[in-house]
């Protein structure tokens, strides 16, 4: 295995995630795509760590995994709330999040 292949994999994963965020409307898929992008970055960090024989990046990657876990909890809670307010998981239906009285 050479480092270049890891780079390509990471780029591919990130691009897939990005396309998912832009093109899909289901909130869960959007969320998954975001997670995919984060993971690709994580992969990149670990690759560099191995490449340079330096553990700093690996430590950051571990920290990042923790952050991703916390974020996942928050994200899922938010998706729950959004679904309750509109009874829909379509991201476009949340164009208007105004909650007060009257119109925009």
């Amino acid at each position: 295995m050479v480092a270049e292949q890891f780079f390509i994999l990471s780029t591919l994963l990130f691009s897939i995630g990005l396309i998912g965020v832009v093109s899909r409307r289901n909130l869960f898929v959007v969320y998954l795509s975001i997670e995919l992008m984060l993971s690709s970055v994580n992969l990149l960090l670990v690759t560099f760590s191995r490449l340079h024989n330096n553990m700093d990046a690996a430590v950051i990657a571990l920290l990042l995994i923790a952050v991703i876990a916390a974020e996942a909890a928050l994200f899922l809670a938010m998706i729950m709330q959004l679904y309750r307010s509109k009874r829909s998981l379509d991201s476009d239906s949340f164009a208007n999040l105004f909650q007060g009285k009257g119109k925009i």
Partner: protein
Amino acid sequence: MIALSLIVILPFFSALILALIYLQNPTKNREKLYAKLALVTPIISTILSFVVAVQLFSSPHDLILHHTLFNWIDVGELHIELAFMADRLTAVMLSFITFIGTLIHIYAIGYMRGDAGYGKFFTYFNLFMGSMLLLILADNPIIMFVGWELVGLSSYLLIGFYHQESQNITAANKAFMVNRIGDFGFIMGLSLLFVVLEGNGYSFSAIEQHIDSVDRGMLALIGGLLFIGAMGKSAQIPLYVWLPDAMAGPTPVSALIHAATMVTAGVYMVARFSFLYIEIPQMGEAIALVGAISALFAAIIASFQDDIKKILAYSTMSQLGYMFIAVGLGAYSSGIFHVFTHAFFKALLFMGAGAVIIALHHEQNIFRMGGLKKELKWVYIPMLIATLAISGIPPFAGFFSKDAILITAFATEHYTIWAMATATAMLTAYYMFRLLFVVFHSAPKSEHNLTKLPSSMTKPLIVLAIGSATAGLLGVGEAYGGTNLFASFLALPDTPIHIEHQTEYLLDSINIILAFIAIFIAYKLFAKHSKYPLQTLPIRSLIVNKFFIDELYSIIFIKPLLLLSRIFGYVIDEKIINNLIFLTVGGYHKSATLFAVLQNSKVRYYALYILIGVSLISITLLKLLGDL
């Protein structure tokens, strides 16, 4: 000397008090109170003016009294003080303006009786007095200009006093606008004068000291521009058209403002700037020529008018022409002397006319009057004296002042001007006696039911009649054994004239004979049965219609101006400028709609924009950083 300031401030102050009382309750009838309040300050001003005049008379001729109130403008080189100055010229103007002004105030108390705007009238009248005195006493041209504008304002207010009729408002507007044209020239002249003086001070005495350093051509330009102002204020050709229409105001206004005082401001201004005009005799000749043309022109029109006040208005314009002949030819004392005597007899004529108008229930056409000699004896006698005075019959006032002007014109070898002035003198005698004969001598046209005149209207007439008869004696020339007290008192830089006494006697007798011929013609035509003579004369309609000058002005100035305004209003503004602005607005609107499409509140599009943006930045960075 604080009296100078008081003379000016007091009338303004009483105008303010009157205005406050009037505005507190405009409908309440408080004529007695208004009359008293309005009369107090002119009387005090008169007394103070005489004090000033006496003090100047008993001092050497170059004494100038000053009083500074405060520093008004202080910007860079421009230091304008609200200051008053009195030399002998001022003193003469001051004494007769306050004196005649007070008399006309007394007269107006009777004349305006019963008018709804009694308080308003006297507010304006006192305002006028203050403004006129400000003009006369000003220490520098800027303050003079303020007074100049204020008299224009009060003139405007008083011409349009009977504002219920729209033609009076038109007359007031006309007076105001024509005067604006003159004032434009005046203020241009003043500004130019300030520039060429290069910050050497701007009071009259400072200008006089530094006038030598100014280029002659520039001086001629300044003199010409200032004279344009004088033409407007003093109703000379071509800016005279407002004066006949200004007779729409109450008669005391015509007497005070449009005969005795305000219209002579132009002459006063030229005399005040005599140190400037003495340097540019060519401009002086032009002024004299304008004066002569105006005098003759107005006299011709006056000979064919029917309205008693219009006749007197044209006569005023004609007499003002004489004054400009005098000041134009460098005979400043003679000009001011004529201003002085003219104020007496013209105020008297107007007040007499006003008395007749009131007695006949506001009838102004002389051919509907007649036979008033007996009934209005105390109007007739003063009017006769004034008419003799204006016609130049010795020993009444007009003879000496007019004589001095004619002699000047002859002696300085301006024979054309002299001939025009002499012809005017003859016409003056004709139309004034025409008026007198038609109104007082001819057979009555109908049963008169005369309104009784209050004594406040007749007594000033008698005072002025005495003035008209004797004021000329102040300026009896050397040829008649006098020493010309008036000229030696004024001590203005007159052009010296040399003429044989024999020639002078000859010229005067020509004038007197011509005047008597004119009176005789008027007597033949009008004294017995007054009807319109010369009905078939072909040029009659031309003259009755005032040479169609108003119509000519309408075609030359007003129509093109209206057309231009319409082009600006409906074509340039509406079509071009409006559309340009709408175009910009439309452009903003269109581009805004275009950008609004991008902001569709859908998160994934925003993510796409971020992607595009980041990509672009990345590509740029890669390009810039090169070999990475």
